[in-house]
């Protein structure tokens, strides 16, 4: 939401070109993410995850409210990054924006893989996620890592909001349904596997479309959540994740 709205704001109100608007929007969303961590998460030392989740939900409601006050309730469309003329590829029509979404998603997945598997900072973040106390014993500043993880997720989140905004429009309250669907995709794919999540998303989209076709379009969203529940009941580790083989 923030990414899309901020981009729209810079683009239309300030009349900046698209690329700088996007960069500024991502930058500001990242700063908002970091500020949120400093003000709302860090003061709670050793809080349980459920409390942090509730605080996060609260903060997102607050930010939606603020966005509504600042920018109003109107829905805005971002222009597509490179025109709206559909492309015809082997008899299928596809919008250029779809290709942008696809390419940027792949890029983000590859970049995050490289970051978490090959850079020392990425590895340090994984170490913190696994065991923060021991991470501090090897000299990692856990607070910085937490802040960094908020920055990274805010940046990626705003990026996602921006690339889909030309298709879905953007307004003060987009993002909730998307967030929930994204959560479904993660659960279906199995946590902590970027590719699994993408496959999960793909599967979810297909099932939704099939369900909409065979049953009724008005059940489209319900189908997503029914699948989520089924997965959580019968295969909580996700469809694509190998069962953990861990020795203790």
């Amino acid at each position, binding site marked *: 939401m923030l990414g899309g709205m901020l981009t729209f704001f810079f683009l239309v109100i300030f009349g900046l070109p698209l690329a700088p608007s996007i960069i500024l929007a991502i930058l500001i969303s990242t700063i908002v993410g970091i500020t949120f961590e400093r003000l709302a998460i860090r003061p709670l030392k050793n809080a349980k995850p459920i409390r942090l989740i509730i605080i996060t939900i609260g903060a997102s409601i607050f930010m939606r409210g603020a966005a509504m006050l600042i920018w109003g309730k109107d829905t805005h469309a971002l222009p597509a990054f490179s025109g709206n003329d559909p492309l015809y590829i082997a008899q299928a029509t596809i919008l250029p924006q779809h290709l942008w979404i696809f390419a940027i998603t792949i890029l983000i997945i590859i970049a995050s893989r490289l970051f978490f598997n090959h850079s*020392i900072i990425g*590895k*340090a973040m*994984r*170490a913190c996620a*696994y*065991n923060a*106390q*021991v*991470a*501090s*014993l*090897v*000299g*990692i*500043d*856990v607070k910085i890592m937490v802040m960094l993880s908020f920055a990274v997720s805010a940046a990626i989140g705003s990026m996602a909001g921006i690339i889909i905004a030309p298709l879905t429009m953007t307004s003060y309250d987009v993002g909730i349904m998307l967030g929930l669907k994204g959560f479904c995709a993660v659960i279906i794919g199995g946590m902590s596997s970027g590719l699994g999540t993408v496959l999960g998303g793909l599967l979810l989209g297909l099932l939704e479309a099939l369900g909409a076709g065979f049953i009724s379009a008005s059940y489209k969203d319900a189908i997503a959540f029914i699948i989520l529940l089924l997965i959580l009941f019968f295969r909580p580790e996700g469809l694509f994740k190998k069962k953990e*083989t*861990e*020795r203790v």
Partner: protein
Amino acid sequence: MAIFISRKLKTMLKIKNINTYYGQVHALKNVSLHLTEGEIVTLIGANGAGKTTLLNSLSGIVPSRSGQILFNDTPINDLYAHQIVKMGISQVPEGRQVFKPLSVEDNLELGAYLYNRKRADKTETKKTGEMVYGLFPILKERRKQLAGTLSGGELQMLSIGRALMARPKLLLLDEPSMGLAPMVAQEIFQVIGNLSREKKTTILLVEQNARAALKLANRGYVLETGRLILEGTAASLLENKEVQRAYLGKDKKEIWER
């Protein structure tokens, strides 16, 4: 003719009257101890005596509420855990806590996290890595493997290796032999002895296996319910009746023999 070079050995660590609490629980009561450069000192005590708490107070994980900790004459009470590692104190935590989702190699790389900025440091890190692989050749064989797939002994070696990657001046070891087969435990003790002899690393060794620890150490302290009740040279503690009864299990044998 023998020439005696007298070099005054420095006190490296000085703990003065620290008190540590978990909420209301008073876990360390007026504990004072010191370590001289190059020494191996062992801390023995029963379950729940406060040994881990003492190491964690030193490492900044559970800061002490009062008292003073001096490391090479610098107070370190108020430093964060990661800053204490930077000062040169590394802990091998109890229970072989390595980063299981990461490879052996990555675990060691994270051990040298302090040194990820400067070029010169990195070549030194490489050397330290070779040294660690030299101490524990099995780790080199397993370096691409996820740490979660290692055996108990290998996990302990990795845990020690990871701490060594920070090139500590003072190494804190929390029950490194716990739950290991006697042969493996012995190998670990041997490595600790070598580190002290060859690398001149100062070592504070927490152990339940009092006999092995006292054989290796120069001096020892005995902790009982948060209080230090005894201290002395390792030899004198091995002879001490109280220690023999409570930690070396001599009396038991005599009773059984009677």
